[in-house]
């Protein structure tokens, strides 16, 4: 059974069909890419999966469960985690605290323990702190643990957002344009970074990667789905996609713009 199974999904806002009859499925441990020109519906697809926008038709099944029956925070607990196009870190908290929320988005002790500062609560706080530091260490961000997230350099913020997302131990990680705004060097680093977290995790984590920097997608993903104007244009391996005339045509305007 696939981990994620999107069947005939349509998402409509008023008169606008942001996503039209999209089929996509993913097995545990796979890393697939989702590309397409701006406005193709890629982020909307992420929003639909995570429960932020309601579906109009079709079904999204995760681990066999129908996601439309769950609220966004419940979907997170089912094992889906994501990053955002414009970074949404908890900007006034430290890097360590950001990751800690990922580890414990629900407090593991009651409010009485919290108010009284009972030893049980304090111990659990220390444990979470330690785990957060472990995650930061794994992604080479430990030196930044006490830095306020909003003050960190852009590339570090991107990595931190990803670190926070994997701290929830997701089975499915949705990365939304992680390389946005990065230069070539940072992009290469990011490719390694993503490859590492993909190969070294406890849940056989699958990843869907939205990216405009095509070299990132081509490098990392085994399968790529191309969206255009809300529908699936083509699915295939990187080689197949790169040489497909329809894909090239859909992108040609985009390619020229982003070449600059």
């Amino acid at each position, binding site marked *: 059974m696939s981990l994620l199974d999107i069947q005939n999904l349509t998402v409509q806002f008023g008169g606008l069909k942001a996503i039209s009859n999209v089929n996509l499925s993913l097995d545990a441990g796979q890393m697939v890419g989702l590309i397409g020109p701006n406005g193709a519906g890629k982020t909307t697809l992420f*929003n639909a999966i995570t429960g*932020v926008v309601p579906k109009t038709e079709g079904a999204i099944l995760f681990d066999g469960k129908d996601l439309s029956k769950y609220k966004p925070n419940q979907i997170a607990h089912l094992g889906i985690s994501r990053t955002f196009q414009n970074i949404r870190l908890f900007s006034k908290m430290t890097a360590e605290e950001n990751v800690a929320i990922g580890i414990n988005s629900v407090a593991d002790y009651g409010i009485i323990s919290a108010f009284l500062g009972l030893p049980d609560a304090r111990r659990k706080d220390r444990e979470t702190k330690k785990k957060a530091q472990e995650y930061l260490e794994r992604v080479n961000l430990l030196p930044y643990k006490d830095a306020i997230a909003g003050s960190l350099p852009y590339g570090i913020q991107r990595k931190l957002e990803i670190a926070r997302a994997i701290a929830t131990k997701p089975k499915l990680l949705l990365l939304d344009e992680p390389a946005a705004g990065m230069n070539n060097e940072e992009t290469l680093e990011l490719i390694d970074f993503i490859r590492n977290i993909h190969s070294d995790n406890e849940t056989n984590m699958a990843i869907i990667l939205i990216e405009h920097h095509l070299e990132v997608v081509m490098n990392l993903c085994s399968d790529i789905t191309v969206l255009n104007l809300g529908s699936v244009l083509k699915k295939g391996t990187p080689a197949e996609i790169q040489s497909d005339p329809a894909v090239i045509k859909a992108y040609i305007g985009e390619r020229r713009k982003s070449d600059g």
Partner: protein
Amino acid sequence: MTVFIQQVITGLSIGSIYALLAVGYALIFSIYNFSNFAFGVIMMVGTFGAVYAINLAGAPLPIAIIVGMIVAAGISLLVELSTYRPMRRKNSPRLYLMIAGIGVNMFVENLAIQTIGSSVKPFPSNWGRIILNIGDISIAYADILSGGLSVVMLVCLWLFIYKTKIGLGIRASAYDVNTTGLMGVNVDMVSLAVFAISGLAAGLAGVFYGMKYTVYPSMGAVSNKAFVASVIGGLGSLPGAVIGGLVLGLLETMVSAYVSSKLRDMIAYLVMILILVFMPNGLLGKSVKDKL
């Protein structure tokens, strides 16, 4: 039956004041996506401007009304230029803008209380209180004026927003103020226009309110109804604000007359809560979702 019609007229009269206030409020809200909590004192200062025009300068009523509107617009611009704009430039979160607005409200209202005294005063012109009797129904001149001028003002506003270049800038900004700026629209000009118009509406509404009821430093609290009216009509919608204002005025009057006058002020908040729970986009509004 005549009693009912009388209530409807009263309702529409206060409703037109609410509608003006709601439009003034909604204009700023729809573009800058925050509530101008200083709106109340803008209305109050404009009203007092009109009052002093009559008392100190002996101005005739029409001139006083214009003075009130201009004073209110002036204060509105002052608040924008001294407080909101610098904060927007610094990318301050909306919450801070609103708190600053509360600060302005606190400052100006209490300044007025200390200098003028908190007591309630009648508007220095009895013209508004002259009653016209049509059969069994009495309408005060103030009602006719407020109803009539509100319509005129709203029509002018509509023309301005839909038929002028600055108006186009305003409408574009209502979609996305940043992009509009990037496309070459003079966003500073737009902000001045918006705050000025908002002030004009507040001043006019304040004068009508003063003519119909009384004038006092804390009268800005009436503008909270503007907020409620906007919610009823649908946040972010100008026509909605007008409808919301009229609906609120009618509802308040009806409840006050047929149920209990003590409930009058609570009605506004009650209706707002109900609308927010059952019809979150109000009657006409578009939902402003967090763009992911």
